[in-house]
């Protein structure tokens, strides 16, 4: 495929944002799991925590775990608001520059959306070919992606607001329990998104796109016409 036939599908800014999101989410996931599931996470934490405890001159054993959890908790409470701030800036930027294209797939009639989602699910889970008419109507972000993004947005909003409340509000125990529950539920929603996202990423259909996201951001026009036909028409990309 010649260079002329390649189309930039993920800009530098997009890829940087994706890297930042990946890094910060992973940090929050690991540090959060330390607080949620210490019985298991202690085994991962210990090799890092033990030298730290020695450095801080804490006693052997529980002291190192305490030091590790303390650092994890600090990171969790620092990175969480930071990520929230970056996400807010990013969304405001997308809205201000009219670049929030993700939800355009929702303009389709509900029946068409359900048909597309069903076809994609069957394709992902069983490898069944996507019907040609559905394929022709697929945009930059397909319906299934948008549904999952909504799930992620709900999860992030739940985690974000409850996280801020847990850090900054002096909550009485009953409210603390409720807010923590919202935080946990939001986290589980993001986990559902991440599992689906990782599954899609590792799916053979999406290898080209994954290479683009972690590479130069370009895909072949041929690939694009098979996967995002409607986007080609909308963005007036010449074949």
């Amino acid at each position, binding site marked *: 495929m010649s260079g002329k036939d390649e189309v930039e599908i993920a800009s530098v800014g997009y890829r940087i944002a994706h890297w930042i999101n990946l890094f910060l989410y992973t940090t929050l996931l690991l540090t959060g799991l*330390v*607080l*949620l*599931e*210490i*019985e*298991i996470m*202690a*085994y991962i934490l*210990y090799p890092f925590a033990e030298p730290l405890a020695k450095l801080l001159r804490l006693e052997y054993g*529980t*002291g190192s*775990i*305490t030091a590790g*959890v*303390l650092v994890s*908790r600090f990171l969790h409470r620092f990175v969480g608001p930071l990520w929230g701030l970056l996400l807010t800036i990013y969304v405001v930027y997308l809205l201000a520059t009219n670049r929030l294209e993700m939800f355009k797939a929702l303009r389709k009639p509900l029946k068409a959306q359900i048909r597309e989602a069903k076809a*994609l699910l069957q*394709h*992902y*889970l*069983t*490898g069944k*070919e*996507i019907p040609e008419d559905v*394929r022709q109507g*697929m945009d930059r*972000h*397909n319906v299934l*992606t948008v549904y999952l993004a909504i799930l992620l947005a709900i999860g992030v909003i739940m985690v974000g607001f409850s996280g801020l409340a847990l850090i900054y509000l002096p909550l009485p*125990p*009953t409210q*603390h*329990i409720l807010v*923590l*529950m919202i935080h*946990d539920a939001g986290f589980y929603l993001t986990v559902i998104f991440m*599992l689906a996202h*990782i*599954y*899609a*990423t*590792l*799916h*053979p*259909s*999406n*290898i*080209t*796109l994954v290479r683009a996201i972690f590479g130069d951001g370009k895909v072949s026009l041929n*690939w694009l016409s*098979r*996967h*995002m036909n409607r986007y080609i028409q909308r963005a007036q990309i010449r074949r």
Partner: protein
Amino acid sequence: MVKLRFPRKDEGVAVLVNLDECIGCRACQIACQEWNGRKALRTSFSPTFTNPRDLHAEAWKVVFFNEFPVTKTLKVAEVETSISSVDVIPVPYNCLHCTEAPCGRACPVGAIKVSDEGAVVIEPGECIGCGFCQDACPYNVPRRGPDGMFYKCSFCVDRIQAGLEPACVEVCPTNVFKFTSMAEAVNIAKNMEAQGKKVYGLNVDSYTGGRLRWIFTASQEKAGRVFPAMFPESAKTPNSFRETVESLAIPAAGIISAIILGLLSFTWLRFKRKGTAESGGACR
């Protein structure tokens, strides 16, 4: 690594609290503060004598004054006079040191230790101030201090290990508290129950271990008034949902991972057989 060894239900020591003997002098409250080096708290007006109004990082034991309006009748010769009055039932209250303490199970750093005597103790240098212990406590006992860490009654474990009684027990002028072995305390409590007294701490919900290290007894009348509010028959940790989800997380993660790997292997094999690894058709 972060594991607790809880004593058996018949192990350790216990305090039997006979509420019928309590006169509400608050000596136990002050002795607790004094022995544990807690700061004195500025008192404030409140609807009752209870001061401070609740457990506090500086007040690990508080005498709660339960007040009930009553009408008493005075009969002199043939004249009957009704007098409105208030009955006061003082209840000295602190951490109950549950047998399988939910706070100890919830602590992510193992800062809550269980001593050989069964005392559930927050190790001051190890608390990180997350508040999970407070969320887990069925009796809302641990309290956050000004340093962000949590504090609660330590059962005066340092005194017990030195052969002494807890400070509150030793100082009580009316012998409300009886500090003894768990087995003996349970026997005495059972005898008192047989004599018609109400006992709390023998058959509590199994979630908190089924037996407490603080066993409260009172006359039926007193118990009827204060037990329902202060000592729930079914003491459950408020965030048991979280604990349940946590226990399910590992098997769930294993099953989901297996399903994902299985499906991915299946689709990859199918696509390879077709030779269409990049032309399958979906997108992100």
